[in-house]
C-alpha cells in the first residue's frame, strides 16, 4: 500500500519519518492510500531495525543539500554546454583520476556523499573484467527533474579546511532552451544552475567545431549564445571554457580562434581556458587539465585578490553546547 505524508520533505517510502517517529508505522501523519499511483514506491512492510545515514550514495536532489549546507559553505559548480558536449564525461574522468590516486592540486579527497553516483558515471569509462568495451556516459535525461543531478565531493585544502563542492550534471537540452529563452519552461533547471552556481565551466565540443560546415557553424553559434547568457549576470563568479574532446584534430582553427576572441571580448572578470580529453597526452596533459580546471575554480572562488583567505581555526571541544555543528553533522 503506498504511503504518503502531508509534511513537506518527508518521504515515507524510504521507511523513515522525518520527525523521528518510532516505530515509524505509528506516526500520526502517515497516510495510506489504497490507490496505487503510477511510479509510487511501495514501502517495505518490515519495520527497519536501526537508522539510515543521511545520504544514499546516489546523486543528490535539492533537499538533500541541507545536511551539507549545515556543515560548511557549499560551492556549486555548474557545468554548462550543449547535449553531447562532454559534461558527464568530464565528471567521470575527474572521478576516475581521483580513484587512481591523482589529486586536485591543493585539495585532498575527503569523502563524498554520492559515491554510488560517481561510480555509476565512471563505470562507463571502466573496463570490467578486462572485457567489455568502454563507452562514453550516455545522454543525461532531461526528465531527470527540474534540478540537475548533483554530485558531491568533500575536499580538504592545504590549510586543513574542509570544502564541500557540488557539481551539476544537467542535460544539455536545458541549456539549449535556456540559450534562446531564459524563461522557457524547459529551462528551469538551467536557470536554477545559473542562479545558484558559484562558478561555471562552459563546454565547447571540439569534434563539432571541426565538423562539416552546417554543424560547425551551428555549434559555434550555440556556444556563443550560451556564453552571452553566462556572462550577462556573471559578476565576479569564475568562468572556465573547456575544450572538450581536444584529441580531435583541429582542422578548422579559425572557428576556435573566433570563438575564443568572442568570449574574451565579453570580458568576463575571471576567465580561463582548459583543454581536456579522455585520451592522455603527456605533452598537453589533457587529464591533468581536468583536475586543474576544478582547482582553478575553487582557488578563484576562495581567494580575494589572488590570496587565499585565512583558514578558520576549527573549534575543538567535546562540549556539545559549544560544538553545535558537530551535533548536526
Amino acid at each position: 500500500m503506498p504511503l504518503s505524508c502531508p509534511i513537506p520533505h518527508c518521504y515515507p517510502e524510504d521507511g523513515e519519518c522525518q520527525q523521528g517517529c518510532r516505530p515509524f508505522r505509528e506516526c500520526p501523519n502517515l497516510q495510506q492510500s489504497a490507490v496505487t499511483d503510477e511510479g509510487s514506491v511501495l514501502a517495505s512492510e518490515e519495520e527497519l531495525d536501526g537508522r539510515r545515514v543521511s545520504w544514499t550514495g546516489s546523486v543528490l536532489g535539492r533537499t538533500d543539500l541541507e545536511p551539507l549546507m549545515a556543515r560548511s559553505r557549499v560551492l556549486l559548480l555548474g557545468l554548462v554546454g550543449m547535449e553531447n558536449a562532454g559534461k558527464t564525461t568530464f565528471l567521470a574522468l575527474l572521478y576516475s583520476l581521483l580513484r587512481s590516486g591523482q589529486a586536485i592540486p591543493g585539495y585532498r579527497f575527503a569523502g563524498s556523499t554520492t559515491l554510488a553516483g560517481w561510480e555509476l558515471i565512471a563505470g562507463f569509462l571502466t573496463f570490467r573484467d578486462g572485457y567489455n568495451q568502454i563507452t562514453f556516459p550516455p545522454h543525461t535525461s532531461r526528465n531527470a527533474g527540474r534540478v540537475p543531478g548533483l554530485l558531491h565531493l568533500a575536499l580538504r585544502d592545504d590549510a586543513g579546511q574542509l570544502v564541500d563542492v557540488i557539481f551539476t550534471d544537467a542535460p544539455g537540452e536545458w541549456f539549449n532552451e535556456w540559450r534562446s529563452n531564459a524563461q522557457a519552461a524547459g529551462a528551469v533547471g538551467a536557470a536554477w544552475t545559473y542562479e545558484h552556481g558559484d562558478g561555471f565551466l562552459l563546454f565547447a565540443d571540439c569534434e563539432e567545431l571541426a565538423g562539416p560546415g552546417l554543424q560547425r557553424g551551428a555549434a559555434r553559434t550555440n556556444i556563443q549564445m550560451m556564453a552571452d547568457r553566462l556572462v550577462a549576470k556573471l559578476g565576479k563568479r569564475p568562468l572556465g571554457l573547456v575544450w572538450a574532446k581536444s584529441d580531435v584534430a583541429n582542422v578548422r582553427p579559425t572557428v576556435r580562434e573566433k570563438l575564443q576572441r568572442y568570449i574574451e571580448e565579453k570580458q568576463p572578470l575571471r576567465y580561463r581556458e582548459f583543454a581536456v580529453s579522455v585520451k592522455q597526452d603527456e605533452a598537453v596533459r589533457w587529464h591533468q587539465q581536468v583536475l586543474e580546471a576544478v582547482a582553478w575554480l575553487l582557488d578563484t572562488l576562495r581567494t580575494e585578490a589572488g590570496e587565499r583567505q585565512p583558514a578558520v581555526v576549527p573549534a575543538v571541544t567535546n562540549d556539545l553546547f559549544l560544538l553545535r555543528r558537530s551535533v548536526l553533522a
Partner: protein
Amino acid sequence: MSKAHRLLIIGGPNAGKTHYVGQLYHRLVTGRSSYRMVTAPADLTVIQAVIDKLASGLAGEHTQSGLNEEISFVVAKNQTTTELVFPDYAGEQVRALMSGRLVSSRWQALISQSTEWLLLIRPDELPVIEDITTRGLAYVEDLKQRRKNTKKEDQSLEAELTAPAFWVELLQMMLYVKRTSALSPVEEPRLTVALSCWDTLGLATTGIEPAAELRQRLPLLAAFLEATWAPGAWRVCGLSSLGQSLDPTTPDEDFVDEGPEAAGYVVLPSGEHTPDLTHLIAF
C-alpha cells in the same frame, strides 16, 4: 591512572578476521605478547572451531552468514586496559550494511561505544580497476575483438561500489554513526588499517612500509584517510595471522609441530616485522 579503551575489529569478506582473533587468543593465553589477558572470554564458541582447526594445522572455515555472535575480552598492558570487541559476522553482512545505508541498532551500539577501530582489508583479492586513466584508449582497440565473444548480459552496469569507494563509504558511515565531525581532523576513534594476508603479497620480508602498499593498491582510500584523520590518530600495518596459507583439509605437519602460537606476524608502520600480534591493539 588506568584508561579504558574499546577496540572494534571489523573487516570485509574473507579478510581473515576469525583467524586473527583465534591467533590473538593463542598469543594471550600462552603469554607471548606485550599484552596480558585480564578477563578471558566467557564464551569461546565463536572462535573455538578456528582454534581447533589451527591446532591441527588446518585453515578455519568461512563464517556462516547470519551468525551474530560476539566475543569480547579484556587485555591490559601496563596501566592501560583495552576491551576487544569482535563481532563475528560473515563479511557479507558489511556489504548488506552498505547496500541499504542502514545501520542496525546492534552495529550502532558497537560503533558508538568503541574508541578505536581495527579495520582488516585483504589486498591480494582486490580487483585491479582498469579504466581510461590506467589503461589508455588504445586498449579499446584490443578489446573490440574480445568483445565479440562476450554475451550481452555481461555488459550490464552494476551500481555496486568498487573496492576503494566501498571502504571510503564504510568509514564515512561509521564516522556518521559515531557522530564525528568532519570539519576538523578525527582524533577519536583512532584507526588501524591492517592489510591482511601480507604473506600472499609476495613482498620483501622487511623494509616495505604498509602505508606505501595502501597508497599503491587503494589510493582513494589512502587519500581519504590522510585528509580525514589527524596524523597521529591512524596508521597502516600489515598482518599475516598464520605466516603462511593453510589448506582446509590437509594438515600442515610443520605448523602442527611448532604450534599456532609460533606462527604469524605483524608488519609495523616502519616496515619492521614482529611476531607479537597484539601490536595491532593499540598504538
